């Protein structure tokens, strides 16, 4: 899985490509941890993401917690239909800011 990072001041945009499963979730967590210093808002672009596993959901949730702690926000964009259904059935669609 690929994660493209774009930093604009205190805004971090992460463009995901591929699958966010048990293995790649760890990779994602590490990658975000490296860049999170001084970041206020994160945008996760799921346009090229085809699959999210339960481990992936936990990573998303933990990133949101971190942003809330600094008074910032996590926004998820370009979610495809299947992943949207996953967000709905797990109740994540209510907990996350999805645009």
């Amino acid at each position, binding site marked *: 899985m690929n994660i493209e990072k774009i930093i604009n001041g205190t805004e971090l945009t992460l463009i995901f490509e591929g699958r966010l499963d048990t293995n790649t979730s760890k990779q994602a967590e590490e990658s975000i941890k490296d860049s999170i210093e001084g970041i206020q808002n994160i945008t996760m672009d799921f346009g090229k993401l085809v699959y999210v596993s339960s*481990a992936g959901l936990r990573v998303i949730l933990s990133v949101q917690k971190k942003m809330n702690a600094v008074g910032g926000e996590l926004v998820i964009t370009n979610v495809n239909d299947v992943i949207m259904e996953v967000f709905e*059935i797990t*109740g994540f669609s209510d907990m996350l800011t999805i645009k």
Partner: protein
Amino acid sequence: MITQENTELIYRNIIENMSDGVMVIGFNGVITYINEAAAEIIGMDKENLLNTKIAAVFFQYDENDALTQLLLDSVYDGTERNSGMVDYFDGTNKKKLYVTTAYLRNEEKEQKAVIVLLSDLTEIKKLEEEKDKITSTFGRYLSDDIVKSLLESPDGLALGGKKCDVTIMMTDLRGFTTISENMLPVDIITMLNNYLGEMVNIIDKYEGTVIEYIGDAILAVFGEPRHSACPEASAVACAIEMQNRMNIVNSFNRNNSFPPLEMGIGINSGVAVLGNIGSEKCTKYSVIGKNVNLCSRIEGYTVGGQILVSQSVKDKISVPLDIRGEVSILPKGIKIPLTVYDVASIGGDYGVGCTDDDTAILALVNDRVMVNLFKISSKHVSETPIVAKLTAISERRAEVSFFGTDEISEFSDFQLAAVSEDGTIVFTDVFCKSVCAGDGKALLHFTAVNNRLMKFVEKYKKM
């Protein structure tokens, strides 16, 4: 009578009272229905779970990833059911659950729900693990074949045995009691366990079954419970390999400053009773019969490094056998002398021969050294020795010549003490078995040696 009206009531009752958990997750991940059993499995009150988001219940701990993945899989896979054994952690207890999820989607895709079925298999899994542990522990104390035949056949555990044709092998470490007398208990066990481990591996390779250890002796059978084409040949090939392996065993002993070991093996075949002997309270899997006793007697005649087999064993082997010698024995309880054979190698498909030469070259002893031979009968050492002159010696054997008409019998055990011409004690506390006697001479094979003897031997080897 089931009518349309009471159908719903009946089904609702069934689900309410089931021992398996049922949960329905509706729109936006909210638990819209949950039965008593599911609440109990999850470990929370039914009232607290109803209308709660599953994200709050199941996404806290990463132990529950496999469970939540099943929910996601039901969405990704659409109409298929997804099931699996998963771990569940409620913050305090860990459980093993069998979970099935099914995604319900109506035609307009407006109403969606996931049905979740939960079965708590924690207790069953625990019992399975305990059963495995017991079986493997059992397998450490009895060989796998015995465990298998005890547990898997319908009358496996019943008392009583069956009469069958088997080949019996008895091994013994020469002079073990004496050797171990000066060793620490922990060292004795280490040395013994290493030796037994090596030997049992070989017995297993040749489809033999270890019945029991009797101190440092091994009693094994071939032919039952594991079948082999020719158990007699398997036993002989096994014995030869075991003797050859003693080099490795003694190498281990040297590295750990343990004394060297020598093993004698006796093999006999014939009818014996194999089975569960004793009572319900105390049972032993064993082999009994006169052929087992005879095997033990035959083994008693061996010296270190030797394999003696009975006539019945020799007769059953069709592949070439290299026989070093024949010995006529009259064991206790037998009326006519029996011939047993000293086997060195076996051919054919078995193709294994003794690598160790038993007869090391004896160095001549020109000095006048007298040997006192104290005969040992029924573990009792005689007080009056027979005195002989030491004529030749090696690390393993000694040659003596007697005075006048003195003589000793073959296959007798002796304790030795040697004295030089000036009365100095050369060595004591050495044990041996006479392997050859006649014409005023005898060849003695050492069964227990010590450093003093070895120093003495070194002196004459250098000459």
